[in-house]
C-alpha cells in the first residue's frame, strides 16, 4: 500500500507537467485551430533558459554565436530567473503566431500540424547542437518536505506542483468564462467572420492566446526540470500524454483536461513501478497508459459518422489519376538503375535509402493522401516489419522472399489495429491515437530488452535466393549493386500497386471518404470498410519498406523507427506531396539519409546555401509584399555572388542540418500548404485544360463570358433558358403561354392511386435527448410521384430525411419496395435504391463535377451487376440537368445553383428508385428555381420518384403532386397543392397571411385540380 501511494504521488509531478502542456494545447487550439505539437519542445526551451539564467547565462539559439553567453550579473535567484524565462516564453509564443501560424490561418489542419512539428524539430535541434546532450541539473524549486501519507514517506514537491497547476487551471477557466477577452476568445474560435462583423480582432485574440499558451507550457517546463534530468530529448514523449489529456477534455474543457493529465501521470508512475515485476514487460508499460485513456474515451464518446453541421475540412490537395503504368515505370527503373550503377560507397547507400524510404512513404500516400487519415505511425509500423523479420528469420526459419512478405503481413495486421480507432473518430484525434500507438510499439516492443537485443538492435540475416547472395554486403563493395536492384524492384512493385489502387474503384471510394464521409455513405460506400482497407494496404507497404531497411542495416534498430521519428517522417511525406505516387518517391529523395541529405552532408558550397535560402525568403516576400519581389531577388543574387567570391569550398552543415531542414520545412509549408507536388500538378492540369480548350472551343461554356467568372453564371445566364430561344425566334418578349409551353413538357397525369406504394413511412419518431424532433410520422409515396415535405423551421423535416436515410436513429418503420430498411446503415440503404442530397450540399470540393457524380455511381454498381455503362449514364444526367458545360471543372468554382444540381446528379447517379432532396432550391433565385422545377419533372419522367423538402413555396406548389406538411415534428396535413394552399391550419403556421407567392413570375394558368387516389387533406395513418 505504501509503495502504491508513493508512486502515485510521484506521478503527480509528471501529471502536473502534462496538465500544463495540455492547457497550452487547449488554449492554442481554441484560439487558432492549431494543435501545437511543439508545446513540449517549447517547455523544454524555457526550462533550459531558466536553468542557464540560474547560472548567470542566457540561452542564445542563434547558430554561430555563443550558445550560452554570460549576462554579466552572475547567477540569478529563483524569481528573476523564473520571471525572465516566462517573459521569454510569452515572446516566443507571440513570435510563433506572427511568423508562422498567422500566415497558415486558412491552411488545412494537416499543414498546421506539419508546421508545428517543424517548430519542434528546430527547437530540439538548436538545443542539441548549441548546448549539447549532457544533462543540466537544476536545483529543486518547491520545498522538499517529506510528508507521511498512508504510512509512506512522499516528497512534497510533487504535491506543490500539482496544486499550482490546479490553481492555474482554475484561474484560466475563470478568465475564459468571466472576462470579456476570454469570451471574445471563445467567440473568435467559433466563427472568424462572426468575430469580424462584431468588431473583434481574431488576430489580436490569437496573438494573446499563443503567448498565454507558451507561458503556461513554460511554467510547466521549468517546474518539472528539477524532477527529471534536463537533456534535449527529456520532454520528447510528454506531448503524447498531454495530447491524450487534451483529447479527453475535447480540446476545450479545462477541468477535465487537467484531471485527465494528473491521472495519466499517476498511472504512468504506477506502471513504471510495475515494470520491475518479473512477469510484466520491463519497458513500455508507462506508454500504454495514454493509449488506454484515449481508447476508453473513444469508446465512450466517438461516433461513426460526423454529426450534421460539423464542418469537415479535408483539403489535402489534388490526387491526380496516374495516366499509365509503363511510362513512369520505365523512367523510375531507368533512372534508378543508372543512379545505382554510377555511384558507389556512401552515395549509393544514400540512393538505396531513398528507394526504401520511398516505399514507406507510399504507405503514407495511401493512408493519408488518398484516404485522408492522418497517421503518424507509418514509420513505426515499418519498424514492426523490421522487428518481425528478425523473429521470422530466427524463430520461424522462413526463407527469402517469403520472409519479408510475411513481415509485411504482420505489419498489415498492426496497421489495421492502428486504424481501428479511425472508425469511430476522424481528424486530429486519429492522429493523436496513432502517435500514442507508435509510442507503445516503440517502447513496449522495439526497446524492450526482454524481447530484443537492446541497444545493438536485433540481427537480420542477408536475403538470398537460390544461393545467390542479395545482401547489402560490407567493407569493400558496400553496398552491393544487387541489393540496390532488389530495392528498386520492390519499389517498382509497390508504386505500381499504389497506382493501381488510385485508378480502381477502391481509390475513387478512398478519395470520396477523404472528402466527405457523410456524402460517401449516401453514395453507397462503406466508410469503415474503406478506412480499414487503407490502413491494411498502408501497413503492408510500410512493413515491406521496414523489412528492406532492416536488410540494409543488417539489423532492426529502434532508433530508425521511433514515434517522434514517425512525426518527422509524416512531415517529410506531406511536404513532398502525399497525394500521389510521385510525391511518395519525392519523399524518399528528401528524407533523412536520402540523396539530398547526403549531398548536403558532404559539404555544400556556401553560395548554394545562400541562394537556396534567399530564394525561399524571396518567395515569402513575393507572397506578402509583391512590390518588393524584384528587389529581393536582386539582393539574393548579389549575396550569392558575394558568397561565391569570398568563401571557397564547402560548408559543413554537419550538426545544423536538422535545424536548417526544419526551418526550410516551415517556410515551405507556409508557401505551399498542400505540399510541393500539389501546385506543380495544378499548373499541369491548368495547362492541359488550356490545350483542350484550344482544340475544341465549342465545348467551353458560353454563359461564362457573361462576366461572373469565379462563379460562371451558367445557370442564371439567360441564354440557357428555352425562353431565350423563343425570344430570339419571336423577336420579342414571350407571352406567358409561350414561356410555359417552352419550359414544361406535357404534364403527366398524376400517378395511379391504386399502385403499390414505393416508400412507406410508418410511425417514425426521432428523439435527441429530451427533444422530440419527430413523432409518429406516417405517409406513403407512390411510384412516379413528386412529394413535397414542408413545414416551418424546426418542424423536423431534415431530421425526418435523416431518419429515412439512416443517418438518425428512429423508432417506427421505413419500407422501400416492400422491404424493411430498419437497422440498415446509410450506405446499405443507398445500395438498396434510396438516394438523398444534403442541406449543406456537401460536395467533394477537390474533385471535378464529373468525378463527384462518378462517386455516386458506386451505389448503382454495387447493387446491380448489370450497372451498364456508367459513363454514358452520367452524361445523360448532365444533359437533363444542363451541366455539360461545366462537367470537368472543379466543383469549388461553380455557383450555388450549379452546385445544387451537381449534388442532385450525384444522388441520381446511384440509379435510385426514390431520391430525397433536402432543400434543392436553397440559394437559387426565381429564374433558377423555375428551371429546377422543370428539371425535377424531367427526372421524374425518367423514372425516379422524388421526395423534396423546400421553403420555396412557388416551386413546391408548382411541381409537387402531393404535399406533406409537418409542424412541431408531426404530420398536420397531406394532400394535393390546391388543398394545402387552402388549409387554414397550414396557412397560419407556415405560409403566413400573404401567400408565399413572392417571386416575380408571369401570370400562370390556374392550377389544375388534382384528381384521384386516396389523397385528401386528412392525416394518413
Amino acid at each position, binding site marked *: 500500500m505504501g509503495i502504491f501511494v508513493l508512486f502515485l504521488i510521484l506521478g503527480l509531478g509528471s501529471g502536473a507537467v502534462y496538465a500544463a502542456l495540455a492547457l497550452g494545447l487547449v488554449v492554442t487550439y481554441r484560439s487558432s485551430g492549431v494543435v501545437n505539437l511543439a508545446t513540449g519542445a517549447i517547455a523544454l526551451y524555457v526550462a533550459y533558459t531558466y536553468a542557464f539564467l540560474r547560472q548567470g547565462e542566457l540561452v542564445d539559439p542563434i547558430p554561430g554565436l555563443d550558445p550560452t553567453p554570460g549576462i554579466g550579473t552572475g547567477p540569478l535567484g529563483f524569481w528573476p530567473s523564473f520571471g525572465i524565462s516566462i517573459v521569454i516564453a510569452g515572446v516566443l509564443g507571440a513570435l510563433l503566431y506572427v511568423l508562422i501560424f498567422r500566415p497558415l490561418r486558412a491552411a488545412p489542419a494537416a499543414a498546421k500540424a506539419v508546421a508545428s512539428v517543424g517548430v519542434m524539430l528546430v527547437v530540439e535541434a538548436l538545443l542539441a547542437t548549441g548546448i549539447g546532450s549532457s544533462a543540466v541539473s537544476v536545483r529543486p524549486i518547491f520545498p522538499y518536505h517529506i510528508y507521511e501519507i498512508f504510512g509512506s514517506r512522499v516528497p512534497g514537491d510533487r504535491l506543490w506542483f500539482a496544486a499550482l497547476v490546479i490553481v492555474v487551471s482554475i484561474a484560466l477557466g475563470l478568465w475564459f468564462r468571466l472576462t*470579456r477577452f476570454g*469570451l*471574445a476568445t*471563445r*467567440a473568435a474560435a*467559433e*466563427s472568424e*467572420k*462572426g468575430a*469580424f*462583423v*462584431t*468588431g*473583434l*480582432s481574431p488576430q489580436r485574440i490569437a496573438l494573446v492566446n499563443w503567448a498565454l499558451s507558451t507561458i503556461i507550457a513554460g511554467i510547466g517546463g521549468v517546474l518539472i526540470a528539477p524532477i527529471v534530468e534536463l537533456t534535449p530529448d527529456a520532454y520528447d514523449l510528454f506531448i503524447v500524454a498531454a495530447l491524450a489529456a487534451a483529447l479527453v477534455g475535447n480540446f476545450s474543457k479545462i477541468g477535465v483536461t487537467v484531471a485527465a493529465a494528473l491521472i495519466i501521470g499517476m498511472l504512468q508512475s504506477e506502471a513504471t513501478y510495475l515494470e520491475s515485476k518479473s512477469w510484466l514487460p520491463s519497458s513500455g508499460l508507462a506508454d500504454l497508459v495514454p493509449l488506454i485513456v484515449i481508447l476508453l474515451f473513444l469508446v465512450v464518446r466517438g461516433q461513426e459518422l460526423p454529426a450534421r453541421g460539423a464542418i469537415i475540412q479535408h483539403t489535402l490537395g489534388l490526387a491526380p489519376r496516374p495516366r499509365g503504368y509503363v511510362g513512369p515505370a520505365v523512367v523510375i527503373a531507368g533512372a534508378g538503375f543508372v543512379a545505382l550503377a554510377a555511384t558507389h560507397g556512401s552515395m549509393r547507400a544514400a540512393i538505396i535509402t531513398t528507394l526504401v524510404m520511398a516505399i514507406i512513404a507510399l504507405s503514407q500516400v495511401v493512408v493519408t493522401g488518398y484516404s485522408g487519415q492522418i497517421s503518424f505511425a507509418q514509420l513505426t509500423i515499418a519498424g514492426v516489419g523490421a522487428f518481425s523479420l528478425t523473429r521470422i528469420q530466427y524463430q520461424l526459419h522462413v526463407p527469402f522472399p517469403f520472409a519479408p512478405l510475411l513481415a509485411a503481413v504482420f505489419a498489415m495486421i498492426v496497421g489495421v489495429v492502428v486504424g481501428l480507432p479511425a472508425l469511430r473518430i476522424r481528424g486530429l484525434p486519429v492522429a493523436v491515437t496513432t502517435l500514442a500507438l507508435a509510442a507503445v510499439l516503440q517502447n513496449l516492443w522495439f526497446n524492450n530488452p526482454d524481447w530484443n537485443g537492446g541497444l545493438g538492435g536485433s540481427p537480420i540475416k542477408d536475403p538470398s535466393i537460390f544461393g545467390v547472395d542479395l545482401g547489402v554486403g560490407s567493407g569493400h563493395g558496400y553496398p552491393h549493386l544487387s541489393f540496390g536492384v532488389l530495392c528498386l524492384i520492390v519499389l517498382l512493385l509497390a508504386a505500381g500497386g499504389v497506382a493501381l489502387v488510385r485508378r480502381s474503384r477502391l481509390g475513387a471510394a478512398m478519395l470520396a471518404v477523404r472528402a466527405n464521409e457523410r456524402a460517401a455513405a449516401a453514395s453507397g460506400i462503406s466508410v469503415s470498410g474503406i478506412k480499414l482497407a487503407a490502413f491494411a494496404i498502408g501497413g503492408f507497404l510500410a512493413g515491406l519498406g521496414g523489412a528492406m531497411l532492416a536488410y540494409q542495416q543488417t539489423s532492426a534498430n529502434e532508433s530508425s523507427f521511433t514515434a517522434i521519428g514517425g512525426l518527422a517522417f509524416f512531415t517529410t511525406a506531406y511536404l513532398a506531396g502525399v497525394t500521389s505516387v510521385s510525391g511518395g518517391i519525392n519523399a524518399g529523395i528528401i528524407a533523412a539519409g536520402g540523396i539530398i541529405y547526403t549531398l548536403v552532408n558532404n559539404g555544400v558550397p556556401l553560395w548554394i546555401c545562400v541562394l537556396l535560402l534567399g530564394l525561399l525568403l524571396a518567395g515569402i516576400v513575393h507572397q506578402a509584399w509583391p512590390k518588393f519581389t524584384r528587389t529581393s531577388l536582386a539582393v539574393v543574387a548579389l549575396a550569392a555572388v558575394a558568397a561565391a567570391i569570398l568563401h571557397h569550398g564547402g560548408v559543413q552543415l554537419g550538426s545544423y542540418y536538422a535545424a536548417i531542414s526544419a526551418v526550410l520545412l516551415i517556410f515551405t509549408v507556409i508557401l505551399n500548404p498542400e505540399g510541393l507536388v500539389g501546385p506543380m500538378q495544378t499548373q499541369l492540369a491548368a495547362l492541359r485544360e488550356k490545350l483542350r480548350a484550344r482544340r475544341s472551343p465549342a465545348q467551353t461554356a458560353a454563359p461564362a463570358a*457573361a*462576366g*461572373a*467568372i*469565379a*462563379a*460562371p*453564371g451558367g*445557370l*442564371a*445566364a*439567360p441564354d440557357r433558358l428555352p*425562353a431565350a430561344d423563343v425570344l430570339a425566334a419571336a423577336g420579342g*418578349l414571350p407571352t406567358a403561354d409561350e414561356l410555359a409551353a417552352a419550359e414544361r413538357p406535357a404534364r403527366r397525369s398524376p400517378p395511379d392511386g391504386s399502385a403499390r406504394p414505393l416508400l412507406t413511412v410508418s410511425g417514425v419518431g426521432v428523439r435527441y435527448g429530451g427533444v422530440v424532433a419527430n413523432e409518429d410520422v406516417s405517409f406513403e409515396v407512390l411510384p412516379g410521384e413528386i412529394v413535397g415535405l414542408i*413545414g*416551418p*423551421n*424546426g418542424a423536423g423535416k431534415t431530421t425526418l430525411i435523416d431518419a429515412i436515410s439512416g443517418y438518425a436513429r428512429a423508432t417506427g418503420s421505413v419500407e422501400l419496395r416492400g422491404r424493411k430498411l430498419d437497422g440498415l446503415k446509410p450506405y446499405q440503404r443507398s445500395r438498396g435504391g434510396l438516394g438523398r442530397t444534403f442541406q449543406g450540399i456537401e460536395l467533394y470540393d477537390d474533385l471535378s463535377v464529373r468525378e463527384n457524380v462518378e462517386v455516386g455511381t458506386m451505389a448503382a454498381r454495387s447493387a446491380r451487376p448489370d450497372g451498364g455503362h456508367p459513363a454514358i449514364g452520367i452524361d445523360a444526367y448532365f444533359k437533363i440537368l444542363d451541366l455539360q458545360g461545366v462537367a470537368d471543372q472543379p466543383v469549388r468554382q461553380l*455557383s*450555388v*445553383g450549379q452546385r445544387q444540381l451537381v449534388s442532385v446528379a450525384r444522388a441520381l447517379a446511384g440509379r435510385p428508385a426514390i431520391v430525397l432532396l433536402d*432543400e434543392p432550391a*436553397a*440559394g*437559387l*433565385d*426565381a*429564374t*433558377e428555381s423555375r428551371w429546377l422545377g422543370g428539371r425535377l419533372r424531367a427526372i421524374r419522367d425518367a423514372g425516379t420518384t422524388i421526395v423534396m423538402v423546400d*421553403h420555396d*413555396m412557388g416551386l413546391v406548389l408548382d411541381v409537387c403532386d402531393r404535399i406533406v406538411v409537418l409542424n412541431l415534428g408531426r404530420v398536420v396535413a397531406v394532400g394535393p397543392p390546391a388543398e394545402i394552399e387552402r388549409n387554414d391550419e397550414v396557412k397560419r*403556421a*407556415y*405560409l*403566413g*397571411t*400573404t401567400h*408565399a407567392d*413572392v*417571386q*416575380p*413570375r*408571369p401570370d400562370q394558368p390556374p392550377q389544375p385540380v388534382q384528381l384521384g387516389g386516396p389523397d385528401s387533406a386528412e392525416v394518413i395513418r
Partner: protein
Amino acid sequence: MSAVLTCSGLDAGYVAGRPVLRNLDLSVDAGTVLALLGPNGAGKTTLLLTIAGLQPPLGGHIGLSGAPVRPGSPRAAVKAGLVLVPDDRSLFKGLTVTENLKLASRRGSATTVEKIFDYFPDLSRRAKIAAGSLSGGEQQMLAIGRALMQDPKVLLVDELSMGLAPVIVESLLPVIRRVVDDTGAACVMVEQHVMLALRIADTAMVLAHGDVALRGDARELAADEARIERAYLGRSAKT
C-alpha cells in the same frame, strides 16, 4: 437628406483583374432602406462583403458621410459604423444569446441588451440559451440584434430570409424598418423575396451579371413586376 453611404466606381471581386461587380455607383440616404435584388451570381453578397471590409475592393472608393473608409479592413468598417449581418449569420453558437449581444456592445453606447430585447421580445425569453440551440428565426433575430448593438450608421443585411418560413420573414422585416426609422441609420438589404423586400424599402436596385440593371423608387418598382423580371434576365434598359 444627405447620403450616408456612397460607393463610387467600385469594382468588387475576389481575384485581381476579374471583378464580379464593375464600376458601381451607389448612394443611400440616412433613414432609408435600399433593397438590393438580382439573380444568383450577380455580386450582391460580394458587394456587401466589400463594403463591410471583409473583402478588399479591386477598385473605386467607399465613403461614409463624405469621409473615405479604409478599404479591406473589417475593423475600420465597423469603427465607421458599417455593420454586416452575414447570410450565414455567423453566430457564436457556443455562447448564450446575452453573451453574443454583450460581445458586440460598444463603450459609451446607448444601445443595451434590453433595447435589443425590446425589438425582439422572443429573444428575451431565450436569453440564457446557447445560440446554437435557437431556431432559425431566433438565430436571425440574434444576428440582427448583434449588429444593432454596434450602433450602425449603415446596416448591411444579407439574405435575411434564407431558410426561414415566410411567416417569420414577414415578422422580421418590419423590425428593420422600425430600426431605420428610429435611429436614422441607412440599410442595404440583399433579398430573394422581391415583393417582401420592396414593401419596406425606399429605393431598390437590381444587379445582374456585375452591372446595375435597374434602379429606382421601391413603390414604383413594386407595381411593375414585369420590369423587375426583365431586369433579372438582363434585358431591360437602365433607368
